């Protein structure tokens, strides 16, 4: 029975499931490092998912859909940036407004454009880049079957996400942008007094998180599901936030934490298949990612330190 669960497939699905979480979590990392809390990741992801799907439905081009998902993510996150940075609104409340707005706008437009609530027509999706055959016998054949199964069967955004995680990690610690980003989340006035524009820096960070969360939405619809369903993000934005915290506000940490959640998700799906054998209602498997999130948060918080100025609007004097 264990052999039915522990398969290359399980780990492959961990990477797949981790991808939208990781993209949003890295977005959260960048945003919070600049000093802006972003609980709007959920709504931004949903917006990206919807407009990505709509773009594919309109043009038939999945890559155009990916682009539009990111653009939509940037546009809706601009509202959050404006509220948090310029209007000095409570960032958590502004994020909540955006989550609701995304739910409303996607549902509204769904009915306006497609004439019905629920789920859109299926769209053309992005398939795996490589389609290698897993043949061969013996030990080497087995190894190849695993390597191929786990790492080489994925769609483009899954790989792009790994690259983004590595690049973001490097950039945060080695570039001008990264140093200023880290500084403005800790002590924005110090950054201001050396002549760096905090407002602009935070705007850029929020928009970047919007692009990443939008891309996460594109991954959900254009690579994984193949259609848009209302409220399909189902709390992933919040889990991504937890992954960012668990990853201690670093890009690679966020990715690693997302992998953990992805694995739990993959396991959950695997176990559902076996529900006749172990007789646990499927709802309990569906709860698993959410329970895991709470457990992870409970275990990690005391030791993870958030950027000092996160959530505080920065006010220039006079």
């Amino acid at each position, binding site marked *: 029975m264990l052999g039915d669960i522990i398969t290359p497939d399980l780990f492959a699905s961990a990477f797949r499931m981790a991808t939208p979480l990781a993209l949003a979590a890295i977005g959260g990392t960048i945003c919070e490092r600049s000093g802006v809390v972003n609980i709007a990741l959920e709504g931004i992801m949903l917006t990206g998912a919807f407009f990505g799907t709509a773009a594919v439905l309109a043009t038939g081009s999945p890559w155009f859909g990916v682009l539009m998902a990111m653009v939509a993510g940037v546009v809706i996150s601009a509202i959050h940036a404006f509220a948090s940075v310029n209007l000095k609104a409570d960032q958590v409340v502004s994020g909540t407004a955006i989550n609701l707005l995304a739910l409303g706008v996607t549902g509204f437009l769904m009915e306006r454009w497609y004439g019905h609530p629920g789920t859109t027509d299926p769209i053309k999706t992005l398939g795996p880049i490589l389609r290698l055959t897993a043949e061969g016998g013996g030990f080497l054949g087995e190894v190849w079957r695993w390597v191929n199964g786990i790492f080489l069967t994925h769609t483009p955004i899954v790989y792009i996400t790994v690259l983004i995680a590595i690049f973001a990690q490097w950039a945060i610690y*080695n570039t001008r942008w990264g140093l*200023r980003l880290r500084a403005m989340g*800790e*002590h924005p006035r110090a950054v*201001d*007094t*050396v*002549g760096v524009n905090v407002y602009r820096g935070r705007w850029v960070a929020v928009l970047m998180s919007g692009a990443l969360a939008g891309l996460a939405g594109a991954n959900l619809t254009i690579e994984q599901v193949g259609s848009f369903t209302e409220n399909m993000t189902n709390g992933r934005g919040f889990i991504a936030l937890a992954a960012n915290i668990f990853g201690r506000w670093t890009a690679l940490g966020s990715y690693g934490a997302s992998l953990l959640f992805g694995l739990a998700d993959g396991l959950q799906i695997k176990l559902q298949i076996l529900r006749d054998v172990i007789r646990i209602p499927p709802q309990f498997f569906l709860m698993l990612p959410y329970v895991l999130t709470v457990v992870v948060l409970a275990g990690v918080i005391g030791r993870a330190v958030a950027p000092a100025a996160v959530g505080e609007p920065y006010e220039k*004097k*006079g």
Partner: protein
Amino acid sequence: MPVLELREITKVFPGVIANERVSLELEKGEIVALLGENGAGKTTLMNVVYGLLSADGGEILMDGEPAKIKSPRQAIDHGIGMVHQHFMLVEPLTVTENIVLGREPGRLGVIDFKIARERVIEISQRYGLKIDPDARIEDLSVGMQQRVEILKALFQGARVLILDEPTAVLTPQEVRELFGVVRSLVDEGLSVVFITHKLEEVMAVADRIVVMRDGRVVGETRPEDTDEIGLARMMVGRDVVLRVEKPVSTCGDTVLEVSDLHADDERGLEAVKGVSFSVCGGEVVAVAGVSGNGQTELVDCIVGLRRPTGGTMHLKGKDITHASARSSIEAGVSHIPEDRHRRGLVLEFDLAENLILGDHRTPPYSTRGLLHPKAVTTMARKRIDDYDVRTPSEKVIASNLSGGNQQKLVVAREIGRDPELLVAAQPTRGLDVGAIEFVHRQILDERAEGKAVLLVSLELEEVLSLADRILVMYEGRIVREFTADEADEETLGYYMTGGGGVKLDDDARQAGPIESGGDA
């Protein structure tokens, strides 16, 4: 030609004129002291120069040319650097990262940390400001952090350096070291504006003194043409009582007995390492020390905000070692906290609500969980009268009061409660002369009523003028105890820094008995 010239700078905040037609000239290689009380408009003026605030009138000239300074960036580009009173350092970052922030060397947006580090070392050697370029700011002492700030300004190419109250957090020895640094900077061709409200510093370091009051320049002089009393009069606008007169202490029963107290700080490091002392009724005992030597943790233990890891504390014989903040208040301990905005007041509450904070659970203000608004109002009005809190009504929101009135409110609550022991931590920090005099009088009134007072202060003048006994705290221990007449600033400073760690330099200046009332 002056390197920096301000012409009739005016800055208005809603309801206040912070700067009114202020003019100022700074020559190359000159140290100008900008002297004035808290709220005189010194920092506002310099924030205008540094581009943090925009002036409502007047102009700034650099080397005789009008300079448009609308942002710190432009100020830096004009060669102006500023060391702020609250350091503008990012704690988790390294010294190098902080210094190069905003002007990072490198190509295509990638920082070349090797070059950055070399430049930091180069500048630090050139000006004789030794520093570890790889240390994290949070691990440095306050004096070292200030050094990083100066290096940061130099790295950015400052020709004019503005130091805003640079000595507020330093020991006398560190202050002298800073003066040496300032002198050498000037020798290298820099010009310095030195903002302070401490008269003896002005006399020691300035080439020229510009005195501000109520947003205006009220006088200009040179150290050799004046003395501290003259300066004080110019600064405050009237004669100042420089010493608090107090009758001889009559020590009653022991009120607070602390023995072999140990406590950890937030990071779990031992901060209080076996402290023993007692305070009796009718006595003011002061704890002197450089910030961060365990005073905060000691106070936290006594008022029940921190659990000691060892030792005992007794209040009038009652064991309060493990008392919570609540039972400590109920046992008769009052606390004027160090950080009054954070710990002293709920700024969003009205004055009446603030005045019952801590007493809100006890009659007559509440019984069985129900508040009694009438009793609260009656008490609030009485306290506001008794303690001279300037406000139209007890329903005013606390954040609308001035800093001095807010502190009066805290004092009204804590002393009005009629405690056995008053713990006052930095009770006059940031207050103007009038408010300082008021707080001092209240503390001495408590003493006269036979109450015990434990005063923790970084201001040695305050310690010397109020205390009957002085405990010097260093690295979590009480290293020396003095009676009031045994101690002077130099000796206290000597023991505060580890007694022998720093060589006394007696000819630096005379430690006279006359001290300013400005920050006593």
